[in-house]
């Protein structure tokens, strides 16, 4: 039985960033990667761009074609890991092949959540989570269709946008009272919904699909909770995602709404690590383990899992819920708490004349959330303040100003971030200057 120093299960954000991190510390250890999908790693969030034609097939790949070879990764393409035995440190693929490992990473990602809707199981639909789904959507929409999207979360809205670009009629049905209810606040949801409606997408909020009747192929009729009937040629189900934990569960790893990991991305079994959308990991703002099913968070966890697997003591700094979206020319960025649950949060709001909108959420002098719509430039400064849990008492009044920046920070904080952060260069410069002065004397 072949034995690898490192085995990675999954082939997406978390997996690839783990491989990069492993290789940054251990250039030669044997490394294998198992991916159920046959393709080289691609950027999953780009599937809507592929449908819309703003990205071509080549642009989908996250890494260059020779990536696995250059990184010396045995890429088992199209190979699903069926079982993992942490005790004997081996795994088995669906083809019955078996391998041993010294350190294992589960980066198995998410799966779409299937709502218990009558008739859905018998119907044909897309969940719009993979390159294959994008291909199917492209094929089916070679003629404009009447389409129905269940769910106005990120994936549902991206699917709606993609279908719209293909000339389809699009109706989005959302159970909550607004679009993107997790990523955005009420005002920004309204702004996005207005743009979508202006562009011809119909959005029905506060409604849900209670029954689906299949009518052959992808066609069918949906009955809403208010009794309304909607005929469709194509149905997209996008009502949420869940951590994909089946492999972890078979392996007997502790799972609580996701694979449980410690601050080194280690699971409950020795030498078994986990990262990405499959995992509940520390959230900086909430201060507790959370599933943040987001690409940057998955990538960061993967990176830290990889560093730790390769022997470095590298605690995961923590993730944060954050979103960057743009629909029909309106960009919106958000991070942290954008919908404060109670009155203990202070909310600052600023509306520009040109329709842009900014919001900061503060709790106990700490910035815990931000949202900007329209003018998004430099919003990352706010995100970084959230992540640093910085005290913003003295700069509160400037946070939402157009020219907000480091200029408003106390000087010491600014120097620390800008000058000293540049790898102790200030010190080097000082030493060089002293050296020059010494010589002059």
């Amino acid at each position, binding site marked *: 039985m072949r034995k690898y120093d490192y085995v990675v299960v999954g082939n997406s954000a978390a997996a690839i960033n783990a491989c990069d991190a492993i290789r940054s510390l251990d250039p030669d250890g044997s490394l294998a990667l198992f991916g159920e999908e046959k393709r080289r790693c691609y950027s999953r969030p780009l599937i809507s761009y592929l449908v819309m034609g703003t990205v071509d097939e080549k642009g989908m790949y996250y890494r260059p074609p020779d990536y696995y070879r250059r990184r010396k990764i045995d890429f088992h393409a199209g190979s699903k890991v069926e079982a993992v035995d942490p005790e004997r440190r081996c795994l088995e693929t669906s083809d019955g092949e078996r391998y041993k490992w010294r350190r294992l990473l589960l980066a198995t990602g998410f799966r779409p959540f299937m709502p218990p809707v009558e008739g859905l199981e018998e119907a044909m639909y897309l969940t719009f989570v993979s390159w294959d789904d994008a291909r199917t959507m492209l094929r089916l929409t070679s003629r404009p269709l009447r389409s129905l999207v269940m769910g106005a979360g990120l994936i549902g809205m991206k699917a709606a946008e993609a279908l719209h670009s293909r000339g389809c009629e699009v109706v989005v049905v959302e159970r909550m009272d607004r679009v993107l209810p997790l990523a955005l606040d009420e005002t920004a949801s309204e702004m996005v919904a207005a743009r979508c409606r202006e562009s011809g997408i119909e959005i029905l909020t506060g409604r849900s699909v209670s029954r689906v009747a299949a009518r052959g192929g992808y066609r069918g009729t949906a009955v809403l909770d208010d009794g309304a009937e909607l005929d469709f040629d194509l149905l997209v189900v996008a009502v949420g995602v869940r951590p994909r934990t089946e492999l972890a569960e078979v392996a007997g790893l502790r799972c609580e709404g996701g694979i449980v990991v410690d601050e080194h991305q280690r699971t409950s079994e020795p030498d078994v690590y986990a990262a990405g959308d499959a995992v509940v990991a520390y959230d900086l703002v909430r201060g507790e383990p959370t599933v943040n099913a987001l690409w940057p968070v998955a990538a960061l966890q993967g990176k830290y899992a990889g560093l730790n697997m390769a022997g470095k003591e590298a605690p995961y700094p923590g993730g944060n819920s954050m979103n960057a979206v743009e629909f029909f020319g309106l960009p919106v960025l958000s991070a942290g708490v954008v919908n404060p649950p109670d009155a203990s949060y202070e909310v600052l709001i600023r509306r520009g004349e040109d329709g842009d909108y900014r919001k900061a959420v503060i709790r106990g002098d700490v910035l815990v959330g931000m949202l900007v719509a329209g003018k998004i430039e430099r919003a990352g400064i706010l995100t970084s303040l959230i992540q640093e849990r910085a005290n913003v008492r003295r700069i509160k009044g400037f946070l939402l100003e157009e020219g907000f920046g480091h200029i408003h920070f106390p000087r010491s904080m600014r120097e620390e971030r*800008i000058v000293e952060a540049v790898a102790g260069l200030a010190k080097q410069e000082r030493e060089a200057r002293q050296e020059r002065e010494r010589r002059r004397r």
Partner: protein
Amino acid sequence: MKRIIPREEYCIGCRLCEIHCIVQHSKSRNIIKAFKKERRPAKRVEVEEHGHVSFALQCRHCEEAPCITACLSGAMQRDGVSGVVVHDSQRCVGCWTCILVCPYGAVRRDGEGKKVVGKCDLCPDLEVPACVANCPNEALVLVEE
């Protein structure tokens, strides 16, 4: 690698760095054409100003660069040789995730409608980056490790 350090005690807030940055990243690299005739690229350096204090800031080329980890498409990467955080506009889809995570606000949307970001590339064709070379008061200092 090359790094640029701002010195607020010398900055006079003239914004010549911004102008020369734009020129350097324009098609013709000619100041009149860049501002009058061509599509004007985004500036990759930003003068922050408040009261009498000002300084210019561009990408810090962070050791642990959040933009690289966060980039959805793989367009933001570290150049293995120079260590510079480079942005491949061909692969950029304009998702703005880098703008969302850059602690320095050093990445901006580039051009109207063109869904690509721009950031400091340390002027690879120049010995000294344009902003540093054209600062009249040495408020931007180039250091090399």
